C-alpha cells in the first residue's frame, strides 16, 4: 500500500433536501493507494451517500474532496476518467447481449475498439461467461448478471474502483469468482472502496475499514485492529453490533 492518499475527504457534510438531519456529518477520512477500503455501517449510515458524492452522482452540502489530486468540485469530469463504479443495482440493458453491453459502456470510456474487444473476451473468460457473451442479459441468472455488472464498471482498468454491495444475492461460487477477480485487480494497482453489509466478507476482503453511523465515523483501522479494539468481540460482526446497537434500522 502506498502512503499517498488517493481519496482525501475533509469535513464532508450532506443534507438532503427537506431534511434537518445530516446524512453525512463532518466526515473526514483518507483512502490510500492500493488499499481495499471497506466503508461499513447499518442502513442509512451514509455509505451510499458517501460513494455517490465521490462518484459525482450527488452534490455535497459542504466539505472538500480530492481524488488523485483533483478537487471533486472543480474537476469532476477528470475524476470520472479515473474511477469505476459498480453499484448494487444491476445496471445493464436487458435486450442487449453481454458483449454488446460491455462494448457500449467500454466505448463510453473512450476505449480503443480493438483493445476493448480483447479486454471483453479475456474478462468474460476469466469470469466464466465467454460462451454466454452473445446471449441477451434478460436470459441470464442473477449471478451471471452480477458478474457482467461488475465487468461493465472495471473494463477500462480504473485507478479507483467503487463497489457498492458487489456480491449481494449471489451464491458462494460466484462470490468467490468475483472476489478473486477483484483481488487480482487490486494487485494490479486498482484501489478499491468497498461497501457491504456482508461483514465476514468485508473482514476477509478489506485491508482497511471504516464503520460509520449517522454520517459519522465510529471506528476505523484494519479488520484485525478493529476486532482487537473491542474486548469481547471475536469477529467484525460482533464489533459492528457492539458499536451500532441491536436496534433494526430502516
Amino acid at each position, binding site marked *: 500500500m502506498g502512503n499517498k492518499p488517493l481519496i482525501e475527504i475533509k469535513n464532508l457534510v450532506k443534507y438532503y433536501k427537506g431534511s434537518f438531519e445530516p446524512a453525512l456529518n463532518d466526515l473526514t477520512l483518507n483512502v490510500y493507494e492500493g488499499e481495499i477500503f471497506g466503508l461499513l455501517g447499518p442502513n442509512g449510515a451514509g455509505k451510499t451517500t458517501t460513494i455517490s458524492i465521490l*462518484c459525482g452522482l450527488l452534490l455535497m452540502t459542504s466539505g472538500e474532496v480530492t481524488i488523485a489530486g483533483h478537487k471533486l468540485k472543480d474537476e469532476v469530469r477528470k475524476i*470520472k476518467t479515473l474511477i469505476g463504479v459498480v453499484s448494487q*443495482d*444491476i445496471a445493464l440493458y436487458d435486450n442487449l447481449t453481454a458483449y454488446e453491453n460491455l462494448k457500449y459502456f467500454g466505448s*463510453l470510456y473512450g476505449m480503443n475498439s480493438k483493445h476493448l474487444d480483447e479486454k471483453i473476451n479475456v474478462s468474460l473468460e476469466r469470469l466464466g461467461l465467454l460462451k454466454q457473451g452473445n446471449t441477451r442479459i434478460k436470459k441470464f441468472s442473477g449471478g451471471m448478471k452480477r458478474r457482467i455488472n461488475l465487468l461493465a464498471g472495471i473494463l477500462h482498468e480504473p485507478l479507483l474502483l467503487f463497489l457498492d454491495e458487489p456480491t449481494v444475492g449471489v451464491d458462494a461460487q460466484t462470490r468467490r469468482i468475483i472476489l478473486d477477480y477483484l483481488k487480482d485487480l487490486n494487485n494490479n494497482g486498482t484501489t478499491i472502496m468497498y461497501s457491504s453489509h456482508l461483514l465476514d466478507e468485508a473482514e476477509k476482503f478489506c485491508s482497511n475499514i471504516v464503520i460509520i453511523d449517522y454520517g459519522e465515523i465510529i471506528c476505523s483501522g484494519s479488520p484485525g485492529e478493529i476486532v482487537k479494539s473491542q474486548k469481547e468481540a471475536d469477529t467484525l460482526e460482533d464489533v459492528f453490533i457492539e458499536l451500532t446497537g441491536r436496534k433494526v434500522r430502516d
Partner: protein
Amino acid sequence: MRKIVNTIHKEAVLLIRDKEGLALMFLMPLILVIVVTLLQHKIYQNVNETHIQLVLIDYDQDSVGLAFRKGVQSSGIFEVTLITREDKIKLSDAKKLVAKGKYQMGIYIPEGTTQIIKNRVISVVKSQLPLNVMPEIDIDNQNNEKVELFFDPITKASFQNIVKGTLNEFIAKIETRMVFITYSKVIDAITNQNTNIVYPATSAIVFKESYVSEYNRGIVPNAVQHNVPAWTLFAMFFICMPVAGNIIRERKEGLSARIKTIPVSYFIIIMGKAFVFVMVCILQATMIIAVGKFLLPLFDMPELILGSNISGLLLIVISSALAATGYGAMIGTLSTSFIQASSFGAVSVVILAALGGVWIPVYLMSQAMRNISAFSPMSWGIKGFYEVFLRNSTLIDVLPHAVKLLAFFIICISIAIVYRKLKNTV
C-alpha cells in the same frame, strides 16, 4: 464521435429488438391516418364540394322557376330534386321530408311568381313614361302567395344564406331582363320598328378564378391534403412517449446513474437517442405519405399531391422529427415516473395538435384561437407541409417554419440538459 456512434448503435439495436413496440410505432399512425381521413372526407366534401340535398317545388314553371332551377343545378353545391304541379305533392309533404332530414332545405316557388315580377316591372315602367307612349301590356291578377324557404334545423346558416343569395340574384336578373324587354317594347312602339334588341346572356364583368400556387390546377386542402400532413405530425409528436419512456426506464434501471459516473456528456447520450427516434419519425412520415399517395386512392379518396419541392418536404419532415424528439427528451428528463410522462406527454400532444390545426384546420378557427395556434409547433409543421403540398413553394418558403421547429428542438434539448445538470440527481 465514437461515443455518439456507439450510442446510436445501442439505441437502434434496442429499438429493433422491441418488435411489438416497433410495430405499434408504425402501424398505429397508419391506421389513424386512414381512419381519420376516411371519416373527414365527407366533412371536407361539404366544405369544399357539393351534396346539399335540396327539394325545389316549382309551381311557377315560368322564368323565375326555370332560372332558379338552372342556377342551383349548375352551382355544384346542391343536389336538386324537382317537384312540379304534375307531381301532385303538397307543400306540407315536402316540408315533412325536410323535417325528417331527407332534404337539407326546400324552396317553394308558387304559381305566378314570375308574373308578380312582370307586373311590378310594368308598373315601374308605366310610372316613368307618359301615358300615350306606354304600349298596352297585360297585368295579371296579383298572386299573394310568397316564395318559401324551409330548412332542416341542422343545416348551417351559411348554406341558408347561399340559397337566399342565389335566389335573390336570379330574381334580380329576371327583373332586370324584364325591365330591358319592357323598355324595348316601348321603344319599338315609339319608333314603329321591330328593333329585336337582345338582352346579353352573359355579364359584362366576368371572374377569372385561380389558386395562387405554382400548380396549373388549384389544390384545396381536402381530407387527404390536410389529414396526411396533419396526422403525420401528430404521429411524429407521439414519438415523445417512447423517447420519454426510454429516458425514464434508463433512470429507473440504474443505467442513467452508471452513465453519469462515466466521462460522457448528457448531450452525446441524448443526441444518440434523438438520432434513432428522428429516423423512426422520418420512416413514419414516409409510410404515411405513401399511404396518402397510393393507398387512400383505392378507398375512392383523392390522391395526395406531393408537389415538386422534395428538398422542402425533407426539410420540414426532419425539422418536425427533431422537434418531436426534443420534446420527448425534455418530458423524459423532467418527469419522475412513467405515469407523469405518459399523462403529460399524451395530453400535451393532443392539445398541441388541436391548437396546431390537426383536427380543425387553422383557417376555420376563431381569430383568438388562430393567435394561440401560432405558438404550437404542430402549426409550424402543418404550415410547412402546406407550403410543399398546396403551394408548391420553394425551400426558402419552407425555411421559416423549419427554423421555428429547429429552435423548438434546441430549446427542449437545452432545458433537458440544464435541468439534469441543476438537479444533479439520478
